[in-house]
């Protein structure tokens, strides 16, 4: 069953059709990557799913329920979580407190502290817990935000370019984190440019182009698709 589904999802910005009748389904337990050239409408699609933008038409279903008009924070409480493209962390607060704010919804006291410690371990941020989040390296900031996103115990995790600015080692470690989460049953939808990372994590790939679903399939099928190469991979291998 699909955990996330959009039907004829549509978004106009003035005269610009940024999301064009998108029918999309993310299956329960799947890791799915969204790719496409710049301006393809990937980030807008995320914002529609999160409720940051209201769609011009169509509907969004989460776990079979219509959430098209549901408030953002309400969607989060139902089990959707997100890691933004630019690390969205609380820069002036300490690393530990960043995680605490994400966790204090459902935990308190000793179990809260234990969960923070467990997450710090998982994120390889144990040594930095007392630092201000703003003083972390770029990769560590990305991890911290992934940590905040998974602290909510989401059923669906949205990752917007999770490896942007990471070293190859950091990228690979991030891929392992995503795989570990997926093994625990979290469904993942990621926007990503790094094809090695897509290859590492994705079970299926959707290509967006000018706001439309252009192609869909496994990474091998997508890479073999000459039309995709023409619009997207062509850019990279040119």
């Amino acid at each position, binding site marked *: 069953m699909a955990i996330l589904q959009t039907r004829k999802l549509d978004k106009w910005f003035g005269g610009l059709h940024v999301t064009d009748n998108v029918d999309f389904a993310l299956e329960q337990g799947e890791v799915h990557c969204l790719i496409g050239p710049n301006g393809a409408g990937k980030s807008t699609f995320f914002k529609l799913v*999160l409720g*940051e933008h209201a769609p011009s038409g169509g509907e969004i279903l989460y776990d079979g329920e219509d959430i098209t008009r549901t*408030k*953002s*924070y309400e969607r*989060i*409480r139902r089990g959707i*979580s*997100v890691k*933004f493209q630019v690390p*969205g*962390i*609380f*820069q*002036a*607060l*300490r690393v530990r*407190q960043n995680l*605490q*704010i*994400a966790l*204090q*919804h459902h935990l308190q006291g000793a179990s809260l502290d234990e969960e923070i410690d467990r997450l710090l371990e998982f994120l390889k941020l144990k040594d930095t817990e007392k630092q201000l989040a703003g003083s972390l390296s770029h990769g560590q900031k990305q991890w911290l*935000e992934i940590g*905040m996103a998974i602290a*909510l115990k989401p059923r669906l995790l949205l990752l917007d370019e999770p490896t942007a600015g990471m070293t190859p080692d950091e990228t690979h470690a991030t891929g392992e984190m995503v795989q570990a989460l997926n093994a625990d049953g979290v469904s993942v939808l990621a926007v990503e440019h790094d094809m090695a990372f897509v290859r590492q994590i994705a079970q299926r790939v959707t290509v967006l182009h000018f706001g439309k679903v252009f192609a869909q399939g496994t990474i091998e099928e997508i890479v073999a698709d000459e039309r995709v190469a023409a619009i997207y991979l062509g850019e990279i291998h040119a």
Partner: protein
Amino acid sequence: MASRNLLTSTLGLLEGPQTLGKGVGFWSGFLVVLALACAYPLFADGYDVGNNVYFFNWAFMALGLSLIWGYGGALSFGQTAFFGVAGYAYGVLTINIGDAYGLTFVSLIAAVGLSALFAAVLGYFLFFGRISGVFLGIVTLSVTLVLERFMSQTAGPEWAIGSARLNGFNGMGGMPSLTIPWPGGDIVLYPDVTLYYLTLALLVIVYLALRMLVNSRFGNVLVAIRENPQRAEMLGYDIRRYQLGAFVVGSGLAGLSGVLYTAWGNYITPSSMGMSAAALPVVWVAVGGRSDLTTTLFGTLLVLAGFQYLTIYGSQYALVVMGFLLVVTILAAPSGIFITVGSLFSKGLRRRLARERS
């Protein structure tokens, strides 16, 4: 047992990530300062002590602005609106219902409640309308200026509520001081030693209560909103409610300042909601260091004292100096003088220690 746990965990919030100062050292210092404040009337003339209550009166508004702006990240430029509403409300109420049976305190609570209610209505439209940043400052400033204009034109006899004349530009006077009912004669709190202790006690209570508030889960979310509202919302928090909550509490404190000021001087004027009055709290809070309650409190008292000195002995330029101070603070010490001086000092100390070691 459970209640004891609750007590210790509540008191534990007196220290935390959102407040400077912890441990034996800080609290000893706190007690020393408190003891000095308590001892002050023993060494000073009652008249001076009563006059100096003036400084404490403003501190509540400053602490409230620290909560809204320093912790919540929403710059309200119109806290004087709530100051004025509560001050006038206290005047109207006490002139009509009198000062017997502790009714002045009922009026105090009603007036503060009214300013908080006003803040709740205004804040609802501001925060649920997603108004933020400079626009929030513009709207709140406009509100206080509109109130000032309105009250300034209430000079005629038709502008009266019950037996209380609003009195236009000249301001409203004749309201009673706070009065404690007492067997054998009510205690009237004229600007004197008793009022000093009462105001000091209120200030200590509010300061400690705010420390607990900002270190609570509520405070965690509040600073998260200041740092990154989008992220806070995408952690499942309805940030509008938190912003509104902080705005109502902070504005209620501005209201408390308004009542205390009005009861202290038996007088309030529309200019207390005017442009320069509205700008001053922003200066006090910014100069001291808005993102901490302690630096806000001391910064406010310090700047107020300096301002007072300039107005009395100096010149007509006190306001210009305040503006200059604000600009310098924002450019050179955006986190406030105490934190900036403190970090410079500790940097210097570290450098010296390093030099001595090598």
